[in-house]
């Protein structure tokens, strides 16, 4: 296998020999790929990154880095660089010394050090701060120093552990683009940990969604968004999260949501308890050619954000959210009708939460199936 690749084979980690922090994870990360590990806090994503870095021992399984088994390789021999959440800059060293610290340890020639340092700081716009100490820098600048340190190391793999979580929202958006561009320019493999689904969606070539140490789904961001493997992924990816409601399968084989119009199900769907999910952005307020299902709902809150309006309404006992472009004025308690295209309906197994196979689902109009490349 090529340099820059990371392969995990049934990796598990347990701290107390009873519960798993990471359970039976296998993945192939390609050279030059931007791979995102995403999940809520405590899901094991940082542990997994630290195992790849070699900072954490692996309880079971095998890890291959650059195509070679790396289970017993110390961090310094894995040829990786790492950016930490709190940047881990040495407070007693200047920016320049911080950046060159690793190169000095590896005894890179002075001339080469200087060239790499200037190149990296130039790329990140930090040249004028070289003589400053980390405490004299703002959060964003410290972040850039940490990035520059990873850049000069010239390692084929870079690991990042929630590098943007200490920055304010605006800066975060900017750094997101910068990190992505940097990775593409350098052509390195990036393994990036975040709890922010926006970062995962916008930055990653592929991502792995984790929950309680178990892999929920691995795939391209859009594939995961369009076809979430289970209710957890559907809920976690996308903001606001997908609306999920219990649905009753009628005796006649149709599906009904809280006394609304029933949906005809495909033949294989009989006798199943199901959960029905719809993304907030797929809910429309007006009937169009696309829509083929409608629900009567009671508005409970209206948040007008300027460019879009967030509506919360009651569908039976559950609350749904809808994201509607434009500014809409509704009264609390007002009853209205929402319109949905059946192809945007996701069905999950009521017990396991898993997405139901294609053979099970809502019968659609032929036209909708034709146009529905996304599902």
């Amino acid at each position, binding site marked *: 296998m090529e340099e820059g690749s990371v392969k995990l084979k049934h990796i598990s980690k347990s701290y107390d020999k009873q519960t798993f922090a990471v359970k039976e994870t296998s993945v192939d990360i390609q050279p030059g790929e931007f791979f995102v590990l995403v999940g809520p806090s405590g899901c094991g994503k940082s542990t997994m990154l630290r195992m790849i*870095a*070699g*900072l954490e021992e692996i309880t079971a399984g095998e890890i291959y880095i650059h195509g070679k088994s790396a289970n017993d390789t*110390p*961090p*310094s*021999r894995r040829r*990786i*660089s*790492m950016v*930490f*959440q*709190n*940047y*881990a800059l*040495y*407070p*007693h060293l200047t920016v320049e010394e911080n950046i060159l*610290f*690793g190169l000095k*340890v*590896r005894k890179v020639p002075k001339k080469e050090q200087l060239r790499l340092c200037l190149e990296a700081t130039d790329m990140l716009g930090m040249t004028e701060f070289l003589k400053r100490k980390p*405490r004299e820098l703002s959060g964003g600048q410290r972040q850039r120093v940490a990035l520059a340190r990873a850049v000069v*190391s010239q390692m084929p793999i870079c690991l990042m552990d929630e590098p943007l979580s200490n920055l304010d929202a605006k800066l975060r958006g900017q750094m997101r683009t910068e990190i992505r561009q940097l990775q593409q320019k350098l052509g390195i493999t990036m393994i990036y940990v975040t709890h922010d689904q926006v970062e995962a969606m916008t930055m990653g070539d592929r991502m792995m969604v984790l929950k309680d140490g178990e892999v929920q789904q691995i795939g391209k961001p859009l594939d995961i968004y369009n076809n979430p493997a289970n209710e957890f992924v559907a809920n976690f990816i996308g903001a606001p999260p997908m609306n999920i409601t219990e649905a009753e399968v009628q005796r006649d084989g149709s599906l009904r949501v809280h006394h609304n119009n029933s949906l005809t199900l495909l033949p294989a769907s009989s006798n199943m308890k199901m959960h029905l999910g719809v993304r907030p952005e797929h809910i429309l307020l007006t009937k169009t050619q696309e829509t083929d299902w409608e629900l009567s709902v009671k508005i409970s809150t209206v948040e007008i954000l300027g460019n879009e309006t967030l509506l919360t309404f009651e569908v039976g006992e559950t609350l749904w959210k809808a994201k509607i472009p434009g500014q809409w004025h509704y009264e609390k308690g007002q009853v209205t009708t929402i319109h949905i295209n059946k192809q945007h309906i996701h069905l999950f197994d009521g017990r396991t939460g898993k997405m139901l196979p294609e053979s099970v689902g809502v019968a659609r109009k032929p036209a909708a199936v034709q146009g529905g490349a996304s599902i």
Partner: protein
Amino acid sequence: MKRKMILYALLTLAAFVMFFPIMYAFSVSFMTSEDILSRRLLPSSPTLDNYRDVLVSVPILHYLMNSFIVASTATLGMLIVSALAAFIFAFIPFKGRQAVFLLFISTLLIPWEATMIPNFFTIQSLGWMNNYLALTIPFFALAFGTFLLRQHFKTVPQELYEAAQVEGLSNFQFFYKVVVPYAKTSFVTLGIFGFLTTWNMYLWPLLVTTNDTVRTVQIGLRRLQADEVATNWGLVMAGVILVIIPTLILLAAGQKQLQKGLAKGAIK
């Protein structure tokens, strides 16, 4: 304004009370015997005779030199040993580390005097009597120093250790390239503490020295005090002032460093 005045008045008074013995010693060191006997506060005709006499009557410069060698060596040794021990306790996990550390710290509960006799026998059987080794090595391993440094080392973010590991630093490189500069303030504090303690040591040097070769200045001072005839207090005080000067210089120099360190932490 009034509050401030009262405050300053009280502080001045307190400072005066604190410094009176030293100021009086300073004053006495310039007095003639007659002045001292008539219990004057200030010398009637200041004289340097006492200083001249003290330099002639006992090898005070030799004692000062000894004290300096002993205090510096003991301080340096203590800093090195304590720092290495503290580093292990703060960064290198091993089974039973907590227990070993507690055991280590619990030695703080044993007064030095209680271990004096066994220590003396050890030194004697090693043949270290009248040797610098006897005055320095027993003070290298200091539980207090280890504790102080370990507490400061603990504040070094774990990420720095991990970042260093990723960059390929060995534990020892991490220790002297990152941890030591990081905890500089504690090193200065502990260094001053160690130096002053060893400088002021009296009982132990008295036990392990039988002649002047390595004897320290505190015992030298005792020698100025006559046992049978009347003591020339002017002479003794001149000696005392000579002994105090190095410690004052050290404090003044160290304080600057300490303040620098403290201010550094405050801004961050």
